[in-house]
């Protein structure tokens, strides 16, 4: 197996186990499975951080409070006075993306072989901790949720009439562009995240294939950590900007 074949396999999502609904075989891909792992990590962390809250916060409670307050301030800056409704979603999103994008720095952990021995399923042998956001199916649904959230919040806070009016303001000429905006924004949000994460993932795989020692660690700081956090921030920032524009 040459390098390009290896890379293609590493890049592609693959089914781990399947079941039949209405005569159709449906596979749960490693993207979904990795999401479950990330969700479990986030939920356990959140439970640990918010266990027995104290009036005088200690270290872990400080971290949780600092994060929540940062998200509150971030939302307020970008969305104004209705911002408090969006804090939980944006906070969840930025945490999920930050963990997802950077999870490949833990790919040394033998999650796949562990699952293989537990379940006896051969397909888990392929499972490595890779960022699930390199799967376009996930980034597309993330972007779609953001755009749906924009439309819903616009209707929720300005009414159907206000939302429809938004498309012809300040001039009717803008109508096709405003409609096109929804598609362009979905496309740009999903493709930006997908492209960045897949690109840095491929780059890291190449670096690792060429120089397995030390050098990947240095590159990993930029491509896995910095780019991962940056893309998480950019995605949430743009989502909040779109929402802020729609509800103002």
């Amino acid at each position: 197996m040459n390098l390009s074949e290896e890379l293609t396999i590493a890049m592609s999502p693959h089914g781990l186990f399947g079941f039949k609904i209405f005569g159709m075989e449906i596979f749960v891909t490693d993207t979904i499975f990795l999401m479950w792992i990330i969700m479990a990590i986030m939920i356990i962390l959140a439970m640990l951080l918010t266990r027995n809250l104290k009036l005088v916060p200690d270290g872990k409670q400080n971290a949780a409070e600092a994060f929540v307050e940062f998200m509150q301030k971030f939302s307020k800056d970008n969305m104004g006075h209705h911002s408090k409704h969006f804090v939980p979603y944006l906070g969840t999103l930025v945490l999920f993306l930050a963990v997802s994008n950077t999870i490949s720095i833990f790919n040394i952990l033998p999650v796949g072989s562990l699952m293989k021995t537990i379940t006896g399923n051969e397909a888990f042998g392929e499972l490595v901790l890779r960022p699930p956001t390199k799967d376009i199916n996930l980034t597309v649904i993330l972007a779609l949720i953001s755009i749906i959230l924009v439309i819903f919040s616009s209707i929720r806070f300005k009414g159907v009439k206000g939302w429809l009016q938004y498309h012809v303001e300040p001039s009717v000429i803008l109508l096709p562009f405003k409609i096109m905006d929804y598609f362009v924004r979905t496309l740009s949000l999903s493709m930006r995240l997908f492209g960045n994460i897949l690109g840095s993932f491929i780059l890291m795989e190449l670096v690792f294939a060429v120089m397995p020692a030390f050098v990947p660690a240095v590159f990993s700081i930029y491509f896995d950590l910095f780019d991962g956090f940056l893309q998480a921030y950019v995605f949430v920032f743009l989502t909040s900007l779109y929402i802020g524009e729609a509800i103002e």
Partner: protein
Amino acid sequence: MKFFSFYIPTVVFSAINLLVLYMIMKKILFTPIINFVENRKKLIKDSLDHAEHQKNEAEALRKDYEEQLKAARMAAEKIVEDSRVKAEKQHELLTQVARQEAEEILVKAQEEIQIKKEQMLKELKAEVAGLALAAASKVIEANMDNDKNRRLVDKFLDEAGAA
């Protein structure tokens, strides 16, 4: 599965995952922390207000006490002043009485002296008269010349004048 292919089940599962994650995170992280911080803010604000209120009260109480103290001090000063004035008056009175008494004593003493003087003068005159009589009898007894006689009389007169 190709790396750039849409697979609807993944999309659907991802959406479900994200919604579930959102609801769980909202329930266990965001709502508790936001409520907790909000409550703590309220608590701190309440205690600050309470402290402010108590401070104001204490300030009012202090002013009240200060006024009372001032009034008490003024009353004390008045009492001291009054008693001083009273004492001075008494002192003056006593002094006057004493002076009057002293003057009375003095006057009485002078009167007494005067009486004594007059008495002595009377006695002296009687004596002088006696002496003059004795001297006259003596002059008559002795044969005296004019000169001697005159001298005697002069002397007598001198003596009488001196007394």
